[in-house]
């Protein structure tokens, strides 16, 4: 088993005929992801990816015709929030939005609609997820993965790859790797993914890759302390040496209530039983030290 995606994933790609959409759809298909449909308004009836994938004018039609159950969005920022709403409206429950640069306020009603529909949005501005050996959705390079039992969750893009590569190089395979995205408003937070991993019988260890800013790592740590006591878990926080507050406003600092610094995050994670690495390359060793034998 895996979380979010797997062999049962039937993917519809919104923006499949665009440059990025096509490039990464090919990579997903090559990895073995079952792309059942593409969507580009006005291109319904065409076939994408060398004729292997039917293109529809609307996601609703794609769902009706192909039974798509997962959406991956490569639509440009101006249209991406609408693309998420379209996937929700078509009844899709797992939606990855890769698009970056979406104005923050645009996402607020969208994440609410996702919540009201009982769906799950990963991203925006996220690299997607990979369930090694089963499927990958998004833009994470497939080559860095190895099948296994470590669940990885990260809010960075390339830093995730770095961490996953380190795991793979050390022989530690992954059950699912999830990049939740780094935007201020994202559909799925650390905590949500930890909950999924908790219920996944194939995930036996956890890697959390965070960074300074916000309070998501602290919130996840608080939950993990209570619900994930038994599982070996490690973390890495980027930005320990970053100079303070180039972008964080005053009022931003109080919501997080002193949270947001690397020190705060490391302390919270350590208190919750995470071993916190100083470099991504140390993660495998720390995981073994935490008792993981996978």
């Amino acid at each position, binding site marked *: 088993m895996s979380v979010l995606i797997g062999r049962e994933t039937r993917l519809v790609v919104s923006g499949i005929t665009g440059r990025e959409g096509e490039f990464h759809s090919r990579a997903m298909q090559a990895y073995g992801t079952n792309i059942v449909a593409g969507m580009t308004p006005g291109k319904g009836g065409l076939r994408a990816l060398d004729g292997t994938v039917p293109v529809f004018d609307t996601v609703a039609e794609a769902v009706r015709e192909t039974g798509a159950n997962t959406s991956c969005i490569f639509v440009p920022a101006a249209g991406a929030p609408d693309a998420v709403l379209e996937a929700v409206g078509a009844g899709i429950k797992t939606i990855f939005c890769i698009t970056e640069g979406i104005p923050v306020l645009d996402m*607020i009603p969208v994440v*609410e609609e996702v919540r009201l529909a009982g769906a799950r949005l990963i991203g925006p501005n996220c690299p997607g997820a990979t369930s090694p050996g089963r499927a990958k959705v998004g833009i994470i*390079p497939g080559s860095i993965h190895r099948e296994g039992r470590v669940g990885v969750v990260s809010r960075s*893009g*390339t830093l995730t790859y770095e961490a996953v*590569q380190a795991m793979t190089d050390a022989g530690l395979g992954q059950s699912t790797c999830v990049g939740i995205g780094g935007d201020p408003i994202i559909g799925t937070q650390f905590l949500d993914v930890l909950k999924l991993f908790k219920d996944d019988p194939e995930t036996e260890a956890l890697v959390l890759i965070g960074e300074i800013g916000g309070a998501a790592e602290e919130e996840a740590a608080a939950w993990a302390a209570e619900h994930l006591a038994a599982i070996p878990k490690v973390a*890495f926080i980027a*930005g320990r040496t970053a100079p303070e507050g180039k972008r964080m406003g005053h009022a931003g600092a109080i*919501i997080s209530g002193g949270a947001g610094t690397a020190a705060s995050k490391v302390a919270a994670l350590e208190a919750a039983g995470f071993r916190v690495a100083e470099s991504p390359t140390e993660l495998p060793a720390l995981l073994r030290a935490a008792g993981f034998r996978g």
Partner: protein
Amino acid sequence: MKIQEADAKALLLAQGLPVPPWEVARTPTQARAAAVKFLGDPANATGKVVIKAQVLVGGRGKAGGVKLAGSADEAEDVAAQILALEIKGLPVRRVLVGPAADIVKEYYLSVLLDRSTRRLMFIGSAEGGVEIEQVARDNPAAIVYEHVDPLLGLPDYAARELAFKIGFGPHWKAGAAIAKGLLKTMLAYDADLVEINPLAVIREHGAQGTPVERLVCLDAKVTLDDSALARHPGHEALRDLDAEDPADVEARRYDLTFIKLEGDIGCMVNGAGLAMTTMDLVKRAGGEPANFLDIGGGAKADRVAAAMRLILDDPNVKAILVNIFGGITRGDEVARGLIEARGQQEREVPMVVRIVGTNAEEAAELLRAAHFETAATLDEAAAKAVASARATAA
């Protein structure tokens, strides 16, 4: 993007919020003219003007950037003093001149993004005029929070609730209307933060000279969402170039995120998290990063070349660390950009390049052919860069 107080006030005014009048002056003479106008206004209850430095850093007051003046002469003098200041490294090029308020009571009110609930949130307090962080520490009960509904916004009742909870007393209607106005401002301009501190009850002279009280936005701070600048063409004009390194401007032109730091190891990385990690590892290896530089996803050769120019424009840079983990970004494109950039660069600085991920093999071949120093892991790359910097410095 932060904007100056006067610009923030103009946005608030355009959305119908009560803001006392002001003028912006670039010279003491202009400040004098503005002062004459406000000193002559019969509504001016204090008979003075306030002159405030327009700079994008906090602590203007302590730095001598906010002063009162009781006459045109004094205003000209004070403006000259303030316009000569440099506050936290930023030159003061403009001052705001307005009637000095006769403040009855100061409040705090802001609306901002609350990431964890993924909603906008109001923060209000009857303890205004001081740093809200200070209030949060000393008297957290004095702070009121109210979330904005993600679909409905702030219905009238919620604005009233907020106003009553903050405790505007007889000014509750004005307080509720201002809360709605701040949200409207935020939505109209794609702001990240709209903060009024102080939101103040001031006393003015009414038509017959009788004192009248009203609630007004005495100060204003607005930051705009960088991702939304494309749909607000007017915002670019609000950018305070003084508050930016010239390198920032160049970086923006190429969609790069660049922050200059104090060290000597230039870093070029794709992805903010990995860029911070690279800095962390440089520091851990005993070096000091000269910058944060994220070339973003899918960077092409020209963007890589621009990034290289930015790094090399910093004379402190003694070594360069390039760390690319290809996903959207293709390693070979970056390698080509590096080769091109090296061909044009004016000074020779040692460079350590690590490219992994998408098209890493093609990249490795290109780099090998061009005799670049490469590294397999990030730790190794950091160590090599630190060693090179030391060798250059020695």
